[in-house]
């Protein structure tokens, strides 16, 4: 049997490697997705005061620190056994909307648009955001503007764009002023116009990717996402809903009960664990999280324009949309939802209340915080001693939930596109592209700092390296 390795995978966050094993007939027999970073945050936070955790765990990631801060702060809220002020909850969700918008803009415009707008087989030297800017400067400008809008929301509401200090145990650090609220509201229409323009563009080019839609992780799995009352999409708070591939609801559970439903399997040759739905066991309990999974899990978004887009999405691809290529589409619908939801939150009078933080000592030995990170469900679970020192921590991160699905998607794409014993850049780019569709953050999933590389290797039946492809790092 021969083997191909993609190491490093490019335009993702973190380090990963893909190995593709070829049979004697030159066809793909099996694949492996390896995450090659080492985790460590759960261990080295032991002994730290619980109230430091939002600040420490935010450093796991420079792209979605808000998600870590929110999940961590919610776990701390539980340890203090407080109900945070209403204004604080509104502000936390508003900050989260800003983060979702900037992260989804980054994923679409800067990481995946080069594949989608320049072509999967286009010159790899130019298939990046600089090449995109050269050919489509208006689109690149939209990407920069939308990401900047999200970053500005974070900075205005939470203090800093990256690793802000405004999200704290018990609420937020600073009340919202009318001037800041109005400044964001003034900029919202342009951000919404960009999001709509981008979704319209994407819908126009979608028919150009029939093979990718058919082979980019098109498979029956369960989906998991947070939902609120009436099954509405929720990003900051809600119950974890597991929906089966046939559309029926398997379970809907409160965040503190997650461990009864989610198991974590260790995977050989990878530092990334593979969570699974416990009632079905491993690996039958495979499920997906993130934008596509959230839209499948929820009944509706709950905002007007996003619901209209969701309806069109389902009319086009069915109630349960099962191709991971459609993570891109779902991401853009979510961007519209976040902008609408942000406006709702800012126009709620209670968001201006001056009471934004509850204060308490340790009142519970354990706390769980759950939020939807841009890439999917994020769980922080801490146990503390009587003084509030962390005794044990468990983080289950979005990319971890998707580990099994990414692995199967890589195998499906490889079998569909890779033939023979020589590597063509375009076919290997599709293998990387299916990973990018999930927008994985491997720095988050293994809780290590780092950049992005992924490498592909092709190895023959006797284990010999036939060819390899990387981004040069």
């Amino acid at each position: 049997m021969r083997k191909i390795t993609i190491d490093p995978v490019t335009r993702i966050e973190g380090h990963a490697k893909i190995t593709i094993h070829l049979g004697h007939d030159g066809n793909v027999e099996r694949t492996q997705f390896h995450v090659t970073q080492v985790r460590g945050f759960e261990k080295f936070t032991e002994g730290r005061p619980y109230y430091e955790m939002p600040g420490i765990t935010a450093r796991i990631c420079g792209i979605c620190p808000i998600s870590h801060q929110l999940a961590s702060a919610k776990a701390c809220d539980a340890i203090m056994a407080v109900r945070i002020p209403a204004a604080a909850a509104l502000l936390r969700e508003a900050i989260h909307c800003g983060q979702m918008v900037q992260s989804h803009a980054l994923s679409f415009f800067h990481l995946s648009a080069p594949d989608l707008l320049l072509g999967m087989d286009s010159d790899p030297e130019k298939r990046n955001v600089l090449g995109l800017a050269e050919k489509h400067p208006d689109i690149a400008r939209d990407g920069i503007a939308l990401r900047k809008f999200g970053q500005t929301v974070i900075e205005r509401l939470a203090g800093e764009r990256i690793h802000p200090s405004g999200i704290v145990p018990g609420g937020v650090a600073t009340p919202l002023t009318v001037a800041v609220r109005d400044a964001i509201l003034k900029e919202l229409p342009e951000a919404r116009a960009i999001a709509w323009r981008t979704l319209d563009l994407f819908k126009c080019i979608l028919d150009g990717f029939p093979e990718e839609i058919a082979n980019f992780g098109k498979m029956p799995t369960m989906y998991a996402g947070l939902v609120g009352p009436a099954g509405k999409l929720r990003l900051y708070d809600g119950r974890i809903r597991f929906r089966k591939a046939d559309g029926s609801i398997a379970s809907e559970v409160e965040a503190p009960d997650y461990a009864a439903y989610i198991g974590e399997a260790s995977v050989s040759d990878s530092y990334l664990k593979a969570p699974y739905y416990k009632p079905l066991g491993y690996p039958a309990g495979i499920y997906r999280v993130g934008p596509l999974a959230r839209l499948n899990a929820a009944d509706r978004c709950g905002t007007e324009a996003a619901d209209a887009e969701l309806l069109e999405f389902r009319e086009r691809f069915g109630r349960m949309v099962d191709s991971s290529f459609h993570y891109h589409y779902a991401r853009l619908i979510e961007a519209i939802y976040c902008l609408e939801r942000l406006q709702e939150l800012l126009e709620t009078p209670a968001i201006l209340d001056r009471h934004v933080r509850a204060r308490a000592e340790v009142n519970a030995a354990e706390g769980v915080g759950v939020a939807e990170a841009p890439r999917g469900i994020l769980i922080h679970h801490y146990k503390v001693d009587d003084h509030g020192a962390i005794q044990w921590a468990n983080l289950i991160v979005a990319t971890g939930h998707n580990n099994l699905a990414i692995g199967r998607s890589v195998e499906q794409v490889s079998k569909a596109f890779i033939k023979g014993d020589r590597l063509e850049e375009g076919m290997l780019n599709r293998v990387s592209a299916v990973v990018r569709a999930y927008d994985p953050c491997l720095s988050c999933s293994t809780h290590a700092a780092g950049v992005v590389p992924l490498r592909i290797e092709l190895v023959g039946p006797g284990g010999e390296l036939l060819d390899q492809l990387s981004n040069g790092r």
Partner: protein
Amino acid sequence: MTNSRTDGDGLLVIGYGNSLRGDDGMGPSAAKLLRVGGIDALDVYQLTPELAERIAGARVVFFLDADAGLAPGEIAAEKLQDAASGAVPMEHCANPADLLRLAREVYGTSPEAWLMAMGGADFELGDSLSDAGKRAVSKAVAEVRRRAPLLGPR
């Protein structure tokens, strides 16, 4: 606000680095000092694509960064060029040359730009600068102030 615009003469300073890795925080530290002095200065964790918009609107840009290869406490200034076509593709974070090219491609202009590198002594975990790092920051701040009025179109 961490990064408010305070100056109108077209000088933009971007200090970048991880302020929790000792002297890697020299860039942000220098930027904060310059901002206090009235210069339009951003202190950021990493370079990201949206900075291209601010860069395109500037007359002169100084990037301030730690350099582990430079003697501790020393500084070195280097004039920057746009990234050539085919450079290492920008991903979640960028380098100054990428951003200059992005500014040119998207906004049609790329200003004169300089990298001010600062030599540090300690890049281990911690939120303070070494004595050498502090010296480098002081020198970089003074050098940016000295050079800025002499550079770029007026």
